[in-house]
């Protein structure tokens, strides 16, 4: 092929434009669907925190369960998800938690009962821990351990303590010490901040 100066540039520009167009089109046409999926996922996760079982995994049932049980109220730290009982009484709050893990930030919510005495549940929204090691924080056996932890026993902000330390209440993940530590650290810090702020209000 003849070596010309302009042809490679034009060729590259054309190929780039072609693929960019395809990607832009795909992105545009699936944007609604993806936003819907993400909202649904958040609803599902909040329901999980408060241990509410939707009738089925059907999106309609999940949204219905979400509408029936969970609402938002304004608070100092932004919108707060609230768990309502059958008579619209407040049963608990979903406290946003975030902090740095081993590889990146970990975001999630932790459910606290209305009198700030019990941990209701824990769920992660996003994290980038090593799959199969630190990534196992999003597995059920790990998260289920956090249900029902008594928050009134400690005064120094150490709500989560890994076994076998004294007063330990949760098992860490073998092979993922740093991730486990990060989770307990960010949970303890954000819980303490939330409880102090709400109790002193």
């Amino acid at each position, binding site marked *: 092929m003849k070596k010309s100066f302009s042809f490679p540039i034009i060729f590259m520009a054309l190929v780039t434009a072609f693929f960019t167009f395809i990607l832009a089109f795909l992105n545009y046409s699936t944007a609604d669907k993806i936003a819907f999926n993400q909202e649904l996922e958040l609803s599902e996760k909040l329901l999980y925190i408060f241990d509410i079982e939707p009738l089925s995994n059907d999106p309609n049932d999940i949204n219905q369960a979400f509408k029936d049980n969970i609402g938002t109220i304004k608070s100092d730290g932004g919108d707060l998800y609230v768990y309502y009982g059958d008579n619209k009484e407040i049963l608990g709050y979903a406290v946003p938690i975030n902090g740095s893990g081993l590889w990146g930030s970990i975001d999630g919510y932790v459910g606290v009962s209305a009198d700030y005495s019990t941990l209701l549940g824990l769920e992660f929204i996003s994290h980038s821990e090593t*799959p199969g090691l630190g990534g196992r924080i999003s597995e059920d056996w790990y998260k289920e351990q956090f249900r029902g932890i008594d928050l009134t026993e400690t005064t120094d902000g150490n709500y989560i303590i890994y076994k076998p330390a004294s007063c330990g209440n949760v098992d860490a993940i073998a092979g993922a010490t740093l991730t486990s530590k990060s989770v307990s650290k960010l949970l303890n810090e954000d819980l303490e901040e939330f409880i102090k702020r709400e109790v002193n209000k």
Partner: protein
Amino acid sequence: MMKGDSPKKIFKMGLWEDNPILVQIIGICSALAVTNLMINSLIMGVGLIFVTALSSFTVSLLRNYTPKHIRMMVQVLIIAAYVIIVDIFLKAYMPEMSKALGPYVGLIITNCIIMGRAEAYAQKNSPIPSFLDGVASGLGYTLVLLVIAFIRELLGFGTVFGIQVLGEWWTPWTIMIMPPAAFFILAVVIWITKTIQEKEKDNEKGQVAN
């Protein structure tokens, strides 16, 4: 060879004689990283088969028009585009899968096998054989990953595809799910393959001599 290699030869090369991991020793990075669970390996493999096959196909389609000195730029662009398509598709239509895959989708792009096949095969051959070559290499990669993941998951968790196989009596070998085990097992698998392949070669030579 009139119109490129026969499918049988392509698959024999990709799966065994020229297996990306066992013989070419490329794509090792992800092979070490994702093989602690079989499901991760499978998803990674399927993603790789898709991207390798289609990018090889596209590179081959454009090969006669692509100026030689910018061909790598074009290849990277094509590969990146397909990886993003996989990512968008999974997010929109298979959110469960997308969650399980997480960071792996992005990892596909860094896999040397895709670029390797584009350079070594698709650049010189017509689209259909290139497509098959991509599928074959991807399959070769996936199978090796599954073998390694099977050993690691079974010994490390006592499970296969997340289903408990070994009973309560089994003490999981934690080292199996940690990075070092991937090195050991990969090395042993390569060792076994090399031994068998050497024997095959000797046999062939013997037949010619006779």
